[in-house]
């Protein structure tokens, strides 16, 4: 955080003006109420207030490094009391020292200076209190602003992720190729066509019906994956082998909506679409000791097929969604070998925020 006064010339001028004003009051009070010689009053006001003005600028640093959120209240008070005593002692002694340099020992004014230490301490404490309070207020305001900025950015990211989810929900290539298979089956195998329409409808309904921000039981996600696989199996037949190994305890665990679909699609795209040999796609889920669940999706692929570079947005999108929802990194990991690809996702038992805040 930048220094609130010295960061801009304008702020520095305002600060100087305030001290000039205080200086004026100081001089006026000494001249008219204490009936001190005008020259003495002016010197006194000038010396002590200018010194305090510098001190005030420096006080930012103890305030900045004494964060009330990071230490106990008693610690904070002790720190400030010691800083205040030190700086007041420094201020008063330096002021008196300068006065002594300027004026003769015989001047009545010096006597006044030495007698008036108690009220100087009083005004010093008062200024200290005001300045420190203003600095803390400034920090608080800045933090609030920062927080609001972060929140709006988070929201933006959520919206972006939402949009990406919606966009990635139905892959047009999948849709049109499936429709082509359907058009063929209606003529050659109407019963199978019927079955495919049911599966495809289930898949489309699931994608369209749910709010992408909602968490949903894993059971539903798995059902959706199964509909999708059933459709792809009609297209690719024996080339696609699907295995599932889900621990019963995982089924009711809530997971982000459509978190599995892009991974399954990826596995099919890089595995089945690019291979001439059968590809095994396996999904498994195990509960972990901390009530989270671990989902693993693996597929083999044809090592001879040159990898078609994906855009990577699917994976990035999943990582980003998991990070936003659970506020944890490293929930997503993957391993690639010569001829297999495996993805692991950890789904914590609860999201970082309540569902009510739209995540």
């Amino acid at each position, binding site marked *: 955080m930048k220094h609130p006064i010295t960061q801009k010339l304008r702020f520095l001028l305002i600060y100087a003006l305030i001290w000039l004003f205080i200086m004026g009051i100081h001089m006026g009070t000494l001249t008219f109420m204490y009936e001190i010689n005008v020259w003495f009053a002016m010197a006194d006001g000038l010396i002590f207030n200018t010194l305090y003005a510098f001190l005030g600028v420096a006080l930012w640093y103890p305030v900045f490094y004494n964060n009330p959120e990071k230490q106990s209240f008693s610690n904070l008070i002790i720190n400030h009391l010691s800083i205040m005593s030190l700086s007041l002692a420094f201020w008063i002694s330096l002021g008196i020292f300068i006065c002594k340099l300027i004026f003769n020992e015989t001047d009545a004014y010096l006597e006044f200076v030495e007698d008036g230490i108690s009220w100087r301490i009083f005004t010093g404490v008062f200024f200290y209190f005001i300045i420190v309070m203003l600095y803390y207020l400034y920090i608080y305001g800045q933090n609030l602003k920062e927080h609001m900025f972060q929140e709006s950015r988070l929201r933006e990211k959520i919206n972006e992720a939402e949009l990406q989810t919606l966009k990635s929900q139905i892959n*047009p*290539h999948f849709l*049109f*190729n499936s*429709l*082509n*298979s*359907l*058009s*063929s*089956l209606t*003529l*050659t195998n109407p019963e199978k066509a019927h079955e495919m329409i049911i599966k495809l409808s289930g898949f489309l309904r699931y994608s369209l019906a749910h709010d992408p921000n909602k968490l949903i039981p894993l059971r539903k996600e798995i059902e959706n994956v199964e509909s999708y696989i059933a459709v792809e199996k*009609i*297209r*690719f*037949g024996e080339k696609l082998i699907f295995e599932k190994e889900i621990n019963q305890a995982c089924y009711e665990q809530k997971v982000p909506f459509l978190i599995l679909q892009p991974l399954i699609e990826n596995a099919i795209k890089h595995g089945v*679409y*690019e*291979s*001439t040999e059968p590809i095994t796609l396996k999904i498994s889920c195990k509960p972990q000791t901390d009530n989270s669940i671990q989902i693993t999706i693996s597929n083999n692929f*044809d090592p*001879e*097929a*040159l990898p*078609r*570079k994906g855009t990577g947005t699917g994976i990035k999108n999943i990582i980003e969604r998991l990070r936003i929802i659970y506020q944890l990194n490293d929930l997503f990991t993957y391993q690639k070998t010569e001829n297999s690809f495996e993805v692991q996702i950890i789904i914590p038992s609860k999201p970082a925020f309540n569902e009510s805040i739209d995540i």
Partner: protein
Amino acid sequence: MKVLIIEDEAPAREIVKTFLKDYPNAELVGECEDGFSGLKAIKEMQPDLVFLDVQMPKITGFEMLELLDEQPQIIFTTAYDQYAIKAFEMNAIDYLLKPFSKERFNQAMQKVQANEEVFETGEKLQKVIQTLDDKSEKLFRIAVKKGGDIHMIPVEELLYIEAKDDYVMLYTPKGRYLKEKTMKYYENHLDEQEFVRVHRSYIVRVDQVKRLEPYGKSSYLAILGQGQKINVSLSGYRKLKDVLSF
């Protein structure tokens, strides 16, 4: 008329077969599930007409056609409509967008019967294509033939390309391959941050350039990673300068 179907999805092969039943003179000589077996089948069976899917494992329909010396009549079948322009670039008879109706299929078959006529429109289209020159799709691999074998070169392995009359020579660490394509084609279909046309006769992978030496009055010589030397023209030198920002 001998007909071959190259398509990786069984139901998609079925529909073509079903529609073909109305054409008694069309004899189905084979079905292939991927491009490599398709290539073999075309060579062995010499079909007159091929129904060809674009997106297939390992080698696409387009890459497959590039490797054929003699091209039979082709009808592309695909669900990806962005390939339409490229299909005509390949002198296809027609392009069936999946799913297609029986009427649309019959139309395509009529075009087969009156082949010449279509070629004319094909040529017209080619001119349009050349002016448009679709730059959007970048290559990620190149299919080449060498001594009867087929190699798929990943673009990452490509070091530089040299013009050889109507052909280009592709250089990789594993060897060099001749390909019937233009320099312009590769200039447009390779990532311009990775490959630069440094000379009328050369396109080079930027990170292969180890050193540039002045050569003659206003040209340079680029020394590549494995010691090869290629000419760099003044404009090529400027392009390199832009990409490498030196």
